[in-house]
């Protein structure tokens, strides 16, 4: 069954789309994790479900609805964070509930609360068209190009926002760019691993890379490798079995990689201890 990934059109489409998201998701995720914003991707993902419902209700594609609402939601989340309203988990939890509830109600109103919702939540990787793959590749390319162009200022802000602000960096604008890129990535990954799991591909490979790297750049390199490898291995497992949801196998593969890296790694990502003397 594995050969369908290379011989059948639907398999090749799945492989290309999963590879793009597996490669690009950790690139944005690394900055989110460093800034302790790991759950922001989840928040935007939940809001995007409401966007899918809006898209269906107004008669456009659910993807475009998700894109608009995810971008607006990203700006809202950033505004809440800047005003200190997003410091605890309660605010983020409320955002999660708002997105899921509004999505469920909106899809019900449109008469579309059926099994297709599962595809939105967990991905429809084997049902992509080449047009879908094109949109995913375009979103991935935009995100990657933006991060490459802004890598140094984004890293400076991620390391120490206050010092970056004191140094004259456009911190607020850079923060907006980061959450907007997260929103694009959420929508890009929606059809691949689903809205409930796309944030995992931003965070888990980064957590794995952090266990063996000594620098941010090396962490990013490892994370991209883990993300892409997880996409391939997860997809191979789903294709081999035939009944498994690829979104689930991809994320489980990434988590297995994290456990493996944690075993061989020498440090924890949080809660480090100095080893040298002054």
């Amino acid at each position, binding site marked *: 069954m594995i050969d369908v990934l290379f011989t059948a059109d639907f398999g090749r489409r799945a492989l290309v789309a999963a590879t793009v998201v597996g490669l690009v998701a950790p690139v944005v995720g690394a900055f989110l994790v460093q800034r302790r914003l790991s759950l922001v991707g989840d928040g935007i993902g939940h809001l995007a479900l409401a966007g899918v419902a809006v898209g269906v209700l107004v008669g456009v594609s659910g993807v475009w609805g998700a894109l608009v609402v995810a971008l607006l939601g990203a700006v809202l989340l950033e505004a809440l964070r800047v005003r200190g309203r997003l410091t605890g988990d309660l605010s983020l939890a409320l955002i999660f509930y708002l997105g899921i509830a509004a999505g469920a109600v909106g899809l019900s109103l449109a008469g579309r609360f059926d099994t297709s919702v599962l595809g939105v939540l967990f991905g429809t990787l084997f049902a992509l068209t080449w047009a879908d793959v094109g949109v995913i590749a375009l979103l991935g390319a935009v995100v990657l190009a933006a991060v490459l162009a802004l890598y140094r200022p984004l890293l400076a802000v991620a390391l120490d926002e206050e010092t970056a602000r*004191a140094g*004259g960096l456009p911190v607020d604008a850079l923060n907006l760019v980061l959450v907007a890129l997260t929103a694009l990535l959420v929508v890009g990954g929606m059809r691949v691993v689903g809205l409930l799991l796309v944030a995992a591909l931003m965070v888990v490979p*980064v957590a794995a890379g952090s266990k063996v790297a000594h620098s941010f750049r090396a962490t990013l390199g490892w994370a991209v490798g883990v993300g892409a490898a997880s996409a391939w291995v997860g997809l191979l497992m789903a294709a081999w079995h035939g009944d498994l949801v690829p979104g689930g196998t991809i994320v489980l593969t990434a988590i297995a990689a994290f456990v493996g890296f944690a075993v061989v790694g020498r440090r924890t990502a949080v809660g480090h201890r100095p080893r040298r003397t002054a």
Partner: protein
Amino acid sequence: MRVTAAIEGRGLRFGYGAVPVLDGLEVSVDRGQLVVLTGPNGSGKSTLIRLVVGLLSPDDGTILVLGRPASDPGVRRSIGYAPQGSPGRMVLPVSVTEVVASGLVTGWRGGRRDGDVGAALDAVGMTELGAECVFELSGGQQQRAVIARALVGDRPVLILDEPTTGIDRAFRPRLVEELRRRADAGAAVVVVSHDPDDFHDVCDRILFMEDGQVRDVGHDEFHTLEQEAGS
């Protein structure tokens, strides 16, 4: 012809809520000066520093850096700033070189000049540690990385908050010497310190903050004030 001061505060007022911290404060620091800013806890040293680097805005008065408002992002790019403590909230591994190089980023693009990073690492005695992960270093070494981030790029204004705190005594003279050298090269160097003795022999001025004001004091007067505060 009047020479523009590197840092100039006129009639500065600032308070947290109803509590005034700065009360019509006047201050001026010229290029080429190494100045120690000291005073008791809560006297407003950090507040004044945060006004200079544009992290706070005064309730009243003006604060100019190189003749331009401190709130101007363009002028803030002329300031090397080292806050007290660790180089930020490190969740992921970050190398010392990455921390120091982040000090070169001043805009949307930001440039990295490896030579500058190497010189800054050398200035704080960490040439061999550039590839090390910051959170595997001691607190003192992390503080040195913060200082290197402020020194990189040879900015004309340097602001360092308690740079000697946590740093071993053997290294302090080298740091003091480096800051003196920067001042002699034309930079305005302001060091916030509870212990001006580190800079006793080399600083040009000691500014003492108290009751929302700042004034120049000599070394002897500073020690008298310190003893009075301790008695």
